[in-house]
């Protein structure tokens, strides 16, 4: 089976090359067949790998020695184990669906750009597969940066629009900030352990001091913050919605942004041994969850709402990681992948139908025109809101329960976030699908359900969103029914052994679940009621609403605090320091010579008398030097 693993990234790579090089000659259908087929093939092999892992456990395949430097070795190796295979399935599975969806969604593009799009998408899958399959942090980093690149390329896919390009650049640069942290962590590991391979690192954790571990984990977490859009590095993600919607679904919801979760889950032993970092992770996650949720409450762009929702959900996952619920976090990654991909695809379907209108205030009543989209979207909303028995309920509940055992405060804040989630999701739902149509007449005329390539993925994902939760049935429902937990057990066993896990009483757990669910239902009803028959308000928002609508002015704050000062500094360097300062000194030396030249020339007065006078004085000076040599020497030696 080892060799099989190689095929998983190989297919997307081939797809990338073929589509990239042949984008001018291949027809659109050929391109989509190649693009989708490559991912489908990967998916098929991933499934085979899954079963293989299930029976035989994880394996490591070394391809060749990537870097063999003086003090360390970095093999180019893949590790297929329980954790990575789960991610493989998510990536290739959902990836395939989104590819399929894209083949219709992007059909208006010219063949050349169509080919480019699929090439990028395949390249993305390839990078993402590298990220999760890598057997060491360096390979993970390669994938890590690779997905960043693809994200950049895809956000700026419509490169004629400068705003999109800025968004793309912002995404890349902010990711790089995180990447720096990641890189430093890798250096730290290499420095201390001489290896970055998971097996070596985790086996030798005991050789690291607790300070080292804390630092490494924090640095890794910085990397995760960037990639997974956590405070303070989250602002790129909403802007990344500039890309085509399937891209948002694939990259900025289902896969890439969960790379941070994967990385921390992968390094769970390190984190478990660094409680301080864990607390940090939990707090940042929770803060992000709440913060993004508040912003999502007041967004009017359909994709922006989903984007902040993603940020918020990612926050939950980090909360889960922070409280040691690694399985829960991975579980939530999975369910979130289902329903968030579904939401985005649904949104894409809507946007497609609305001819690239994204403002939900100008939608409404779409359920009549787009039944499949409507139903699937509703299911997804229920899933994300956490209504049992939809998938989101299970995963979110697992995280929150774990959070309660750590600190009840986490739980309460988390629940507050969940309520907000329910509210804004159903606000979105109500504004889009309920009530009457608020767009232009022309738009109304063109409203239609999407083609099968788009609806099929919606349906599949809807099924997954609805039923996916049953992979992880909590203990209280049925003992030993958490199949995901069992599957992942080898990965987290060490952490589980190290960490003391309290268990809540069954009744308390029931109570919490019931209470929360009830509250969520009430919130949903409120939201639907309030926004069902929405009329655009003339008055501007004020107070907190305005603050929320403007995303707490964080972008502006960053501009004022970091971007602008840096730009000003750069300008100062460029125009003042470089020109007048350093180059000024260099040229000044030249000018000094010139000045000296003009002055010294005056000594050459042309008068014999003056010449001889200087000669006479020089002789006097010679004699004086002769008699004061020691003083002069002393003076000179003082100078130098």
């Amino acid at each position, binding site marked *: 089976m080892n060799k099989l693993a190689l095929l998983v990234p190989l297919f997307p790579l081939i797809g990338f090359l073929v589509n990239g090089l042949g984008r001018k000659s291949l027809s659109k259908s050929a391109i989509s067949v190649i693009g989708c087929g490559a991912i489908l093939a990967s998916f098929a092999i991933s499934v085979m790998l899954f079963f293989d892992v299930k029976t035989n456990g994880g394996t490591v395949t070394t391809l060749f020695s990537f*870097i063999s*430097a*003086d003090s360390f070795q970095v093999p180019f190796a893949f590790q297929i184990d329980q954790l990575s295979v789960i991610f493989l399935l998510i990536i290739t599975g959902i990836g395939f669906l989104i590819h399929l969806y894209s083949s219709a969604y992007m059909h208006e593009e010219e063949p050349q750009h169509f080919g480019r799009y699929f090439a990028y998408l395949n390249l993305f899958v390839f990078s993402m597969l590298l990220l999760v399959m890598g057997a060491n942090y360096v390979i993970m980093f*390669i994938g890590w940066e690779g997905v960043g690149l693809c994200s950049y390329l895809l956000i700026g896919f419509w490169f004629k629009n400068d705003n999109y390009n800025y968004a793309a650049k912002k995404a*890349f640069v902010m990711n790089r900030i995180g990447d720096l942290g990641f890189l430093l962590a890798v*250096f730290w590991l*290499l*420095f201390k352990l001489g290896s970055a391979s998971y097996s070596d690192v985790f086996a030798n954790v005991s050789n690291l001091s607790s300070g080292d571990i804390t630092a490494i984990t924090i640095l890794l977490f910085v990397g995760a913050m960037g990639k997974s859009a956590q405070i303070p590095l989250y602002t790129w993600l909403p802007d990344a919605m500039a890309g085509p919607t399937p891209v948002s679904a694939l990259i900025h919801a289902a896969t890439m942004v969960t790379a941070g979760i994967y990385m921390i889950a992968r390094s769970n032993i390190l984190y478990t041994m660094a409680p301080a970092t864990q607390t940090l992770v939990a707090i940042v996650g929770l803060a992000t969850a709440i913060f993004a949720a508040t912003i999502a409450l007041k967004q009017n762009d359909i994709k922006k709402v989903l984007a902040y929702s993603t940020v918020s959900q990612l926050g939950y996952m980090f909360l889960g990681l922070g409280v040691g619920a690694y399985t829960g976090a991975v579980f939530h990654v999975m369910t979130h992948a289902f329903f968030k991909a579904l939401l985005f695809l649904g949104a894409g379907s809507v946007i497609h139908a609305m001819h690239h209108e994204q403002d939900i205030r100008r939608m409404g009543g779409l359920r009549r025109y787009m039944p499949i989209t409507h139903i699937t979207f509703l299911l997804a909303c229920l899933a994300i809101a956490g209504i049992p028995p939809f998938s989101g309920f299970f995963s979110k509940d697992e995280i929150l329960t774990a959070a309660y055992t750590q600190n009840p405060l986490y739980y309460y804040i988390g629940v507050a976030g969940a309520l907000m989630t329910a509210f804004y999701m159903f606000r979105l739902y109500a504004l889009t699908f309920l009530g009457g149509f608020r767009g232009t007449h022309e738009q109304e005329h063109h409203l239609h359900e999407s083609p099968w390539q788009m609806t099929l993925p919606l349906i599949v994902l809807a099924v997954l969103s609805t039923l996916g939760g049953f992979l992880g049935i909590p203990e209280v429902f049925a003992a030993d029914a958490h199949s995901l937990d069992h599957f992942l057990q080898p990965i987290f066993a060490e952490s589980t052994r190290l960490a003391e896990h309290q268990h809540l009483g069954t009744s308390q757990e029931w109570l919490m679940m019931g209470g929360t669910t009830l509250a969520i239902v009430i919130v949903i009803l409120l939201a639907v009621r309030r926004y069902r028959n929405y009329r655009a308000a003339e008055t501007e928002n004020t107070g907190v609403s305005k603050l929320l609508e403007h995303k707490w002015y964080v972008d502006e704050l960053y501009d004022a605090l970091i971007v602008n000062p840096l730009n000003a500094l750069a*300008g100062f360097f460029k125009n003042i320091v470089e020109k007048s300062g*350093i180059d000024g000194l260099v040229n000044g030396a030249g000018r000094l010579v010139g000045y000296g030249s003009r002055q010294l020339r005056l000594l050459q007065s042309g008068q014999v008398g003056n010449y001889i006078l200087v000669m006479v004085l020089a002789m006097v000076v010679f004699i004086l030097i002769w008699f004061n040599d020691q003083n002069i020497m002393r003076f000179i030696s003082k100078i130098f």
Partner: protein
Amino acid sequence: MIPVLLISIPLVTGLVGFFLKEGATARGWALLSSLITLAVAIAGVFFYPRHQLNFDAAWLPDLGSRLTLQMDGMGKMLCLLTAISFPVIFIATYKNNYKNPGSFYALMLLSQAGLTGVFTAGDALLFYFFWELALIPVYFLCSLWGGEKRIAVTFKFFIYTFIGSLLMLTGILYVYFHTPDHSFSMQSFYHTQLEPGKASLAFWLFFLAFAIKMPVFPFHTWQPDTYEQSPTAVTMVLSGIMVKMGVFAVIRWLLPVFPDASTSFADIIIILSVIGMLYASLIAIRQDDIKRLIAYSSIAHIGLMSAAIFTHNATGLEGVMVQMFNHGINVIGLWIVADTIEQQLGTRKFSELGGLAQKAPALAILLVVMALANIALPLTNAFVGEFLMFNGLFQYNLWMAAIAGISVILAAAYTLNMVQKILYGSTTAVTANAGDLRPNVQWILVLLALLVIVLGIYPQPLIDLAKDTVAAVLGK
């Protein structure tokens, strides 16, 4: 014999080149010469036994200087880089018309001879000779075929570097008189013990020359102007190979000769280098000119190299050497793109460019690949070098690595800025009628891009080449 051939082929063909009047003949002659050199270099690096790579003959017996040429791993790598670069440059600029083509190509070949000499010299005086031999043709090239402000700018460049090399000569002299056997040979220099105070003075004399050449902040101000004003073929030589002379020289002639001084001054130099990285990166962000941007970007990259050298860390040094090769490839690729744009559109200003991705997709893709290499994206060649260098820097000092790392972020910012301003957005008046790459340029860029990626995926051969030099340098 190989190094002798590597030097003498361009030298002789260069001298012949002065008498060629026809543009096509001169071009063909130069290309032929450089291709033969490349063949010899490849043969030498990969196929010949070690003793073929060394050469020793009497030169100035009464001065203690011999005509010693040698190729160790680093020498091989840089000779190979030089040998690859020149045909690449010639092909990429094949269509550029120069007045006095014979002299142009002749001077180019002479500078190649000088550069190869620098990389192979095993004798300090010989090293100094080649060091200047490489400089003087470049001075004439820049001054004769450069931009509007060429005379003043290249003159500044010349005097600046000349001061540096004279100071180095002083240092060489000083060390020479303290060698046990009064010899200029590298081995004698390596085995010289100097008293600490004098050693530090001599160290700075050497370092200043190298720092100006590399250039290390704050000795860099000649560089953007010179790059901007030089004809692009020369700029490629300057930034692709010539700056490596400085880096090379530090590794070959500074660290092993002044082990103590270079340890004790490591902090200062690393701090300067790191400041330079950030400083140059920040300036690059605000540039509106492709050439100047690449120039500042190059300063930042070189800053990392010089910082990594002075960590005295084997990993870092390996990284530096790998990066010397890789940076050469990448920056030449970037210059080719810059030259194409300038030749085609007559401007280098970002404010006048835009939307080239629509008009010139091939250029767009290749520029993006080169740009990604410039920001050291993994699986491009630059990543490996930077990874190793940062690693070395990290082992030296965590905070230095962290601060230097900021330049990685800034690099992404300015490089993508460049990509965006050139390729994306809507077309402007200048770019509305732009065409795509000419075939010769395109194929050369494809070749470079392939090198970028292949060396990014499988860098081990380069690292292996570096190993013996590292051992020799740090082994003293």
